[in-house]
């Protein structure tokens, strides 16, 4: 979708308005979308599309995806979560998932940071070194 600089700026401004103490306020975001849809300013679809993208990136930045080959015990989950929060601050959405393809170990992704500790990654590294 073609988006103008002004629309991009407007979306950014709306997004900034939804951030409280450095964290995205979900309620505000919902209200903003509702208001824009109701008022239908010029190019509102493009503005909302860009707003969505900004929210998506922010959510990705504050989401920790923890993959493991097997189900993690509760105490390990808690310690991983605590460690991540200590490093990335509060407001982190932590999601645990199982991926047998990892063979063993953990793969943690927070935003664009990846902590790769899986057997699969090590094997891939080994294969590359050949």
């Amino acid at each position, binding site marked *: 979708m073609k988006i103008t600089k002004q629309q991009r700026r407007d979306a950014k401004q709306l997004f900034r308005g939804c951030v409280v103490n450095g964290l995205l306020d979900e309620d505000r975001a919902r209200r903003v979308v509702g208001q824009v849809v109701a008022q239908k300013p010029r190019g509102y679809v493009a503005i909302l599309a860009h707003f969505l993208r900004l929210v998506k990136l922010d959510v990705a930045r504050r989401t920790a995806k923890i993959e493991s080959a097997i189900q993690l015990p509760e105490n390990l989950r808690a310690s991983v979560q605590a460690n991540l929060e200590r490093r990335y601050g509060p407001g982190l959405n932590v999601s645990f998932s199982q991926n047998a393809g990892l063979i063993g170990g953990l793969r943690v992704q927070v935003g*664009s*940071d990846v902590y790769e500790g899986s057997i699969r990654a090590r094997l891939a590294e080994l294969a590359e070194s050949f």
Partner: protein
Amino acid sequence: MSNLLQEIEAQIAGVKTSVAKQNVGTVREIGDGVAKIEGLTDAMLNEMLDFGNGVTGLALNLEETEVGAIILGDYTGIKEGQEVRTTGKLLQVPVGKGLLGRVVNALGQPVDGKGPVKSEASYPVEKIAPGIIRRKSVSQPVQTGIMAIDAMIPIGRGQRELIIGDRSTGKTTIGIDTIISNARQNKAAEAAGDKEYRPLYSIYVGVGQKQSNIARVVNVLEEAGAMPYTIVVVASASDSATNQYLAPFAGCAMGEWFMDNAMDALIIYDDLSKHAVAYRQVSLVLKRPSGREAYPGDVFYLHSRLLERSARLNEKYGNGSLTALPIIETQLGDVSAYIPTNVISITDGQIYLETDLFYQGVRPAISVGLSVSRVGSAAQIKAMKQVAGRIKLDLAQFRELAAFAQFGSDLDAATQAKIERGKRIVEVFKQPQYNPISVEVQAAVLWAAQNGYFDDVAVEKVKDCQNKLTEYLTTRKSQLTVKIAKEKALSDALTAELKAAVTEFKQTYK
């Protein structure tokens, strides 16, 4: 004690985690050799990015939510959504003497089928030019072997001299001639065991050229025996615009290694007009704002930061140098276009080649009026200064008077003499391609021309007379040329000897 050490080592090994932190992103858009990548929050400018499967990219645009990267190599295998990792490394190319005699691409990978390049070091492609503290003014000559250049537009080691002209006016030939001339001098000095002589290594960077042209250049260099002192960096017209944009910087990094290691190098960028066009293409697909002629705003900085890396270092920093001969192709002789004016203002002078002169048979077709060397005269050897000091003025006067003479008005004897002398000097400066002349012979021939020894020779016979004189000097009077080369100046005794030799030659010449 050894037990304790082992214990500590074991402890450290136990603490060391095998988990490595990586910064990743996903490809959002790919096309025209440029990828837009979401994520990669820690990417650095000019950092190499790993696309997997051996494909690397270069981060050029760091934006708020994404990174714009150019792909080095084949981008057709990259898909949307693919994961990209940062490597923490800036783009580097192999450097060193192992590259001499090789033909490599913009990444320093061999393309000549002679096996892998042997190099122990690598240099970043982008580097800040040496500062004023490390520099020294130009004082040693680069002998191009082209008489018109060495006499009137001398080039010094560490200088940047632009070669500018229309298509097919002999721009590349000047560069190739210079490489051949210096390779011959290097070889001669090696054979003579001259420890004083500083060899000049050459780097030829071909940007956006036809592969056949580059093959021809390599062939000429091989035939002339210049390849052992030369590196050829190729980004031909069939290479991607990104490789064409990087090639001059890669070549420059290879030249800088020689400079940093107390050696002298010469780099020829053939040509920077096509380099600017490649950069314009990269910038436009990266959606950078365009300016005049659709070039991006930083096209001046592109060339200034490249050419500024050519320098002469002072003794404290090894006394090395990197001389640059950038080439610019003009359209219909228009030197006031955007890129030509930019590069003219960056360089320390230019050699302007004219189409008209070329078709009149004046080859090299150097326009004396428009060509200039701003710093090279400090590097000219004394013998050359003595004989060539007035030649540029004489030629300029000749051109002025020749214009008057066209009206057929009666001329006084002095004017007539000036015109006749001018005609002969023009003849003397004509020189076939790939045939450099040594500086001592140049000095002797110019001395003969300046002192009227060609005045009684018919204009069409001047070249023949000059060739025979050269042959006479190099065979029967080789002692004299050796003396001129050694003393580097025409002392009274040497002048007398030269006079006797030329007079003797003139008596036998018919």
